[in-house]
C-alpha cells in the first residue's frame, strides 16, 4: 500500500489541487474564483515536478512512470493554457451586469476540477498493474471529459457532441469491460503481470484471445481507432475547440498506455505478437490510418480535419504497438516510438488547435466563434504572423516535414515497423502519410498563401493570452525539440526498457533455450 502510494505522488498532488479548486470555485468573490485557473496551473506544474521524480513502478512497464507522467503533466499544462477561460468567458461579466444567472456556464472551479480529474486518470493509466486499476483509471479519464464536452459551450452542438461521446463511450467501456472479464477468466487473476506469467506458462487460448480482442477494441474507442472512431469528428467539431484539443490528447494517451499494458501481457516473443492479436492490431492500424486520412481529405472544417487526422495518427502509432520493443535497441523499439510520438503529437496538436482558438470573430464577445473552416484561415500568416506561423509549423510537423518534430516521431515508427518486418504495414503508413499531405497542405496554403476574404470579419486576437502563449510555445517546441531528440528518445526507450525484460524475461526457457543454440 505505502509502496504503491510512493508512485502516486503526482496524482495525489492533482487530487489535492482538485479539492482546492472545487472549494475556491464556490467562493463568492470573483477574484477568488478567477484564481482557480492559477491554482490548477500550479497543481499541474507540481505534478510535473513530482512526476519527474517518480520511482520505478510495478507491473509490466514499470519504468514508464517518470516519462509518461511528466509528458502527461507537461502537455496537460499546455492544454490548460488553451482551456483556461474556455467555459466561463463573459459569464462573470454578464453576472455582474445583472443578467440572467446561467448555471451551466457558471462552472469555473468545476471545469478545472474535471480537467484535473481526467488528467489524474491518464496518469493512473501509466502506473496500472492490475485490470481493476486500469478499468478505474480509464473510466476516470473519460467520465470527466463527457461533462467537459457538454459544458464547454452553450450551443446545442456541444450537447450533441456530449451525447454521442458519452453514449458511444459507454458502449466502448462495456466492450473493454467484457474483454477484461474474459482476460480474468482466462488467467484467473486481475494482476497484469500475473496474467503475463500465466500466459507465458500455459499458453494463450481462444478465451484469452477473445478477451484481448474485446479489450483492445474497447480501448480503441479512447484512441479513436477504427471501428470505434465514428464519434471523433462530430465530437471534436461540436465541443469548444480547447476541449477538442484536450480530447485529442488525454484519452488517446490513456488509451495507448492501456493498450501497451494489455498487449504486453502476451508479449512480443520471437516472431512478434501472437498471430490473432497481431492480425487484430494490423487490421485496426491499416483501417484507422486509411479511414482517418481519406475522410479528412473531404473536409472543409479545420476542426474536422484535425479530428480525422487524430484518427489517422492513432493508426500510425498502432504500428509501433505491433512492432513492440524489438530487441531493445532505440531504433527498433516500437513502444518507445509510441511514447515519443505521444509527446510530439501532444505538442503539435496543441499548436494546431490553440491557433484556432487565438482568433475570435462574431458579434457576441461572450461566446465568439473560433476559427473553424479553411476559409477562416485564409491569410492568417499575413494578418496574424505569430499565430499563423505557429499554426503552419505545427501542421507541417503533423505532416511529418523533415527537421520538424513530427518527422522524428514518425521516423521512429517507420524504423520500428521495418525492424519488426511489417513491411506491408509500413508501406501503408507511407502511403497514408502522402495522403495526409493533401489536407495538411490545404491548411497551410490557406494560412500562408491565400489572401483574406475582404468581406469577411477579420477577427480579433483573443483577450486570453494563454491561448496565444500555448500556440507559440508549441510552434517553437516543434522547432526546438528536435534539438533534444536524443535525450527524449533515450528517455522514452528507457521508459519501456525494463518492461521488456519483464514481458520477455519471464518466458519459460526463453533465454535459456536460445543460449545453447547460440553456443553451437
Amino acid at each position, binding site marked *: 500500500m505505502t509502496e504503491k502510494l510512493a508512485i502516486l505522488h503526482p496524482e495525489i498532488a492533482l487530487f489535492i489541487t482538485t479539492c482546492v479548486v472545487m472549494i475556491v470555485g464556490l467562493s463568492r468573490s470573483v477574484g477568488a474564483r478567477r484564481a482557480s485557473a492559477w491554482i490548477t496551473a500550479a497543481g499541474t*506544474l507540481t505534478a510535473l*515536478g513530482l512526476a*519527474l*521524480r517518480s520511482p520505478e513502478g510495478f507491473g509490466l512497464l514499470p519504468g514508464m512512470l517518470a516519462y509518461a507522467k511528466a509528458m502527461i503533466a507537461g502537455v496537460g499544462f499546455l492544454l490548460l493554457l488553451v482551456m483556461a477561460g474556455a467555459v466561463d468567458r463573459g459569464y462573470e461579466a454578464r453576472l455582474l451586469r445583472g443578467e440572467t444567472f446561467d448555471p451551466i456556464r457558471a462552472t469555473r472551479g468545476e471545469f478545472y476540477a474535471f480537467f484535473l480529474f481526467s488528467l489524474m486518470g491518464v496518469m493512473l493509466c501509466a502506473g496500472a498493474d492490475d485490470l481493476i486499476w486500469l478499468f478505474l483509471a480509464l473510466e476516470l479519464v473519460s467520465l470527466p471529459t463527457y461533462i467537459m464536452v457538454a459544458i464547454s459551450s452553450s450551443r446545442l452542438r456541444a450537447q450533441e457532441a456530449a*451525447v*454521442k461521446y458519452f*453514449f*458511444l463511450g459507454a*458502449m*466502448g467501456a462495456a*466492450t473493454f469491460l467484457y474483454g477484461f472479464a474474459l482476460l480474468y477468466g482466462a488467467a484467473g487473476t486481475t494482476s497484469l503481470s500475473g496474467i503475463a506469467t500465466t500466459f507465458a506458462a500455459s499458453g494463450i487460448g*481462444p478465451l484469452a*484471445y*477473445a478477451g484481448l*480482442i*474485446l479489450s483492445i*477494441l474497447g480501448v480503441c*474507442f479512447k484512441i479513436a481507432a*477504427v*471501428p*470505434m472512431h*465514428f*464519434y471523433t*469528428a*462530430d465530437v471534436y467539431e461540436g465541443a469548444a475547440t480547447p476541449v477538442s484539443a484536450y480530447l485529442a490528447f488525454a484519452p488517446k494517451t490513456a488509451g495507448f498506455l492501456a493498450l501497451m499494458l494489455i498487449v504486453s501481457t502476451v508479449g512480443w516473443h520471437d516472431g512478434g505478437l501472437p*498471430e*490473432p492479436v497481431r*492480425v*487484430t492490431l494490423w*487490421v*485496426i492500424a491499416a483501417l484507422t490510418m*486509411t*479511414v482517418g*486520412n*481519406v*475522410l*479528412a*481529405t*473531404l473536409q472543409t472544417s479545420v476542426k474536422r480535419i484535425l479530428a480525422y487526422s487524430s484518427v489517422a495518427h492513432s493508426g500510425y502509432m498502432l504500428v509501433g504497438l505491433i512492432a513492440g520493443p524489438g530487441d531493445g*535497441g*532505440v*531504433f527498433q523499439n516500437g513502444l518507445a516510438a509510441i511514447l515519443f510520438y505521444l509527446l510530439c503529437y501532444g505538442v503539435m496538436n496543441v499548436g494546431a488547435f490553440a491557433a484556432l482558438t487565438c482568433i475570435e470573430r462574431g458579434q457576441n464577445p461572450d461566446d465568439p466563434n473560433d476559427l473553424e473552416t479553411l476559409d477562416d484561415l485564409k491569410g492568417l500568416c499575413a494578418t496574424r*504572423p*505569430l499565430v499563423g506561423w505557429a499554426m503552419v509549423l505545427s501542421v507541417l510537423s503533423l505532416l511529418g516535414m523533415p*527537421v520538424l518534430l513530427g518527422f522524428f516521431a514518425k521516423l521512429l515508427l517507420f*524504423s520500428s515497423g521495418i525492424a519488426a518486418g511489417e513491411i506491408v504495414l509500413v508501406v501503408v503508413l507511407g502511403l497514408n502519410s502522402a*495522403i495526409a499531405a*493533401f489536407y495538411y497542405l490545404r491548411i497551410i496554403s490557406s494560412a500562408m498563401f491565400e489572401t483574406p476574404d475582404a468581406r469577411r470579419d477579420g477577427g480579433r486576437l483573443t483577450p486570453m*493570452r494563454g491561448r496565444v*502563449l500555448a500556440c*507559440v510555445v508549441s510552434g*517553437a517546441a516543434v522547432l*526546438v525539440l528536435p534539438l*533534444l*531528440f*536524443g*535525450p*527524449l528518445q*533515450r*528517455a522514452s526507450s528507457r521508459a519501456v526498457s525494463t518492461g521488456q525484460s519483464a514481458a520477455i524475461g519471464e518466458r519459460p526457457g526463453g533465454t535459456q533455450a536460445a543460449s545453447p543454440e547460440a553456443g553451437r
Partner: protein
Amino acid sequence: MDAIATILPTFLAAEPAGAHAPGAQVGSGPPWAILIPLLPLLASALCGVCAMLRVKSKAPAFIVVAMLGASFLATAAVWLQGGGPGPMAGASVAHGWDWIQFAWGDGPGQALIANFSLYLDSLTLLWMLFVTGLATLIALYASEYMSHDVGQGYNRFFAYFALFVFAMSCLVMGDNLLMLFLGWEGVGLCSYLLIGYFYKKPSAVAAAKKAFIVNRIGDLGLVLGVFTTFVTFGTIEYAPLFEMVGAGVDGSGHALHGSWQATWIPIFFMIGAFGKSAQLPLYVWLPDAMEGPTPVSALIHAATMVTAGVYLIARMYPIFLLDDAHTALTIVAWTGALTALLAATIGMAQFDIKRIMAYSTVSQLGYMFAGLGVLTTTGAAFHVFTHAFFKATLFLCCGAVMHGFAGQLDLRKLSGVAFMKGWGVVGVAMLVGCLNLAGFPFTAGYFSKDMILAETFVTPGSVIGGASMVGWILLLTAGLTAYYTFRVFFRVFVGPQMYEPGEEHGHAPHRHDHGPGHPPGHGEHDLADARDQAQKDEPGGAHPHGHDFHPHAPGLAINAVLAILAVASVLAALTYFIHKPDHGWVGAMVHHSTAHFGGLDAHHGDEAAHASHGSFLGLDPHKAMYYVSAVIGMVGIFVAWLLHYRGRTGAAVAPADRLLGALGPIPRWAQQKWFVDELYDFVIVKPLWALSNVFHVIDKLIVDGLVNLAGLTPRGLGAGLRPSQNGLLHSYAAGMAGGIVFILLVVWAVS
C-alpha cells in the same frame, strides 16, 4: 529548483556516447562550452516571451546584449582555458547531449551518430571570438538603431538576431556535419527572416525570396557533400573523419587518392560555400539582401554568415587536399578572383552607398576564396578576421548615415557629413574603415590582403592552375577597391556640407530600413507638411536641403560601438605581428587546426624555400607585395581624390561626372550590374519559363491527370466512407458493433 535539478539529468544526461568513442587525440572539452550556443538561444526565447507580453521597452535588446556578451565571455574562457591567448593545442569535443543516434547494424558505417557536441579547436574559436564579439557590439548598436520599432517589431528583431547567433555557433562549433547543416540552414532562415523584416515592403519580400532560392542551390551542394561524406567515410563526426582523411582512407580502409570521391566531395562542398558566401554565379542575392536592417547587413551579410563558406572550406581543407589534381581548389581560386573583380567593377558605378558596401563584401569574399584556392587558409582566415571588423564598421557608419538622414543613401545627395555637428565619430570610423578596405599601408586590411596576394605568386601554377594570373586579377581589383571606397568617402563624408533627406522623410508607409516614426524629439516636422514635400520631390532630382528636415546625429550607443569597432579595426593589424613565424596570430590559430595542411605545406615551413617556389617579377612575393599593393592602393585613393573631391562644389557634381561621358556606356553598364540580373533572367528564368509553358501543357494533360487520379483515389474513398458519418448516434453504434463482429470474425478465421 528541484524540478529543474531533476529535468537536467533526465534530459541532458551526458551519458557516454555508447556507439562511438572519440578518437584518442581528441580530448573532451569543458562541458559548459555548450553555453556558448545555448545562451543566444535562451535570449531568443526570452525575446519571444517579450513579444508575447507585448513589451514596449528596450528590454529585449538588453537581454540580447547581455546574453551575447556572456556568450562571448564563455568563448573567451574556453579559449583561455585551452591555452590562450595563443592557439589551442589540438582539438577537443565538448559533449552536450546525444542528439541523433541511429544504428542499423554493428559494423562501421552502419550508424548515424550526430551528437549535440562542440568541436573546439583554434579555428572554431577564431571564428567564434569574432562572431560573438561582433554580435554583442552590433546588438548594442541595434538597440539604438531599431528604437523606432520599439513596441512593434523590436522584440521580433532581437529574437531573430539572437537566433541567428545560435545558428551561427551551431554552424561553427558543431562537431559533425549535421550540426553544421543545422546551423547552415538556421543562419539561412534567420537571414531570410531578417531580410524580409520589413515584410510590408514588396522589395524586401522579393529580396528575401531571392536569397532563399539562391541559397537553396548552394544548400543542395552542401547536402550532397554531407551525404557523400557519410557514404564514403561512414561518419560525419569531425574527429573520426579527419583521422581517416589524415590517413587518406575511406570508411572501409581503401585509399582515397585518385578516387572519384576525392574530386567530388570537395566540389560539392565548394558549391555549398559559393551559395552561402555569394560567389559567382550565386552572388546575386547578397546586394539585394541589403533590404534588411543595417545592423543585420553588418553582422550577417558582411561579417559572419557570409564567411560561413570560407569556414566550411577551411574546416574541410584536409578533404580538399585529398584531390591530387586540386580541381576544386583551382575552381575556388578562379571563381574568387573573378568574383572579386566583377563585384568591384559594379561597386565602382553604384550610387547607393549601402549597395557599394554590399558589392565590396562580395568582392572581398572573392579575395578570401582566392586565398583558399591558392592554398593559404591563413590568408583567407586573416582576411575574414580583419574584414569582419572593418566591414562591420563601414556598414554601421552607413547605417548611422541612413538613420540620420531618413534613409538617404545616395552619394549624390549627401556631402560633408563628417563635419556636421555630432557626426565626428562616424566620420573617423568611416575613414578607418575605408583605409582598411582600400589596403592603406599598415592597416589590418593591408596585411591580410597582402598575404593572399603574395601567396598567389608563391603557389606554383603546377599545383593550382594559373595562380599567378589570379594574383594579377586581384592586384587590379585592389586598385579598384581603393578607388570605389574613397569615392564614397570623398563624396559623402568630406567636402561641402550638403544633404537631402531620404524618402522616408514623410513617407510613412514606404519605410526603407527605418520605420515611419522618427524617435520622439524629432516631432518638429509636421507630417502633413512632410508629405506635401515628398510629393513635390522628384526622385533623383536635386533639391536643396531645407524644409524642416534636420539630420539626426547618432546617439551614445551607436557612437560607442563605432568607436570600439574603429579601434578594433586598427588593432587587428597588430595581430599580424604576434606569432610572426605563423604569419600572425590568426595564422597561428589556423595552423593549429585541421585547416593547417600537411602535404603541400613544405614551402610554408621556412622563408628561404619561398623564393624557389614562386616569384613576383623576380622578387620574393611576400616582400614585393608590401610595396606593390601599397602603391596600388595609394593610386586608387589618389584617383578617387582627383575625381571626387578636388574641385567638387556640391553633392551631386563631381569631376568624375565629366569623365563619364568619355567612357561611353560602360559606366552605365556597370551601374546596371553588368546586366547580370537581366542575363539570369534571359538565360535561366525566361527559358525556364518557356520550358515550363511546354511542360505546363504536358503537365495539364498527363501529370495533372495522374496527380488528380492519385488525389482522387483518397477523395473517392472518402466520399465512399462519408455516409458512415451521417451524424446518427445509432449508425455510429451500429458501425462499432459491426466492427467488433468483423474483427472477431477475422481473428476467428485466422486462428
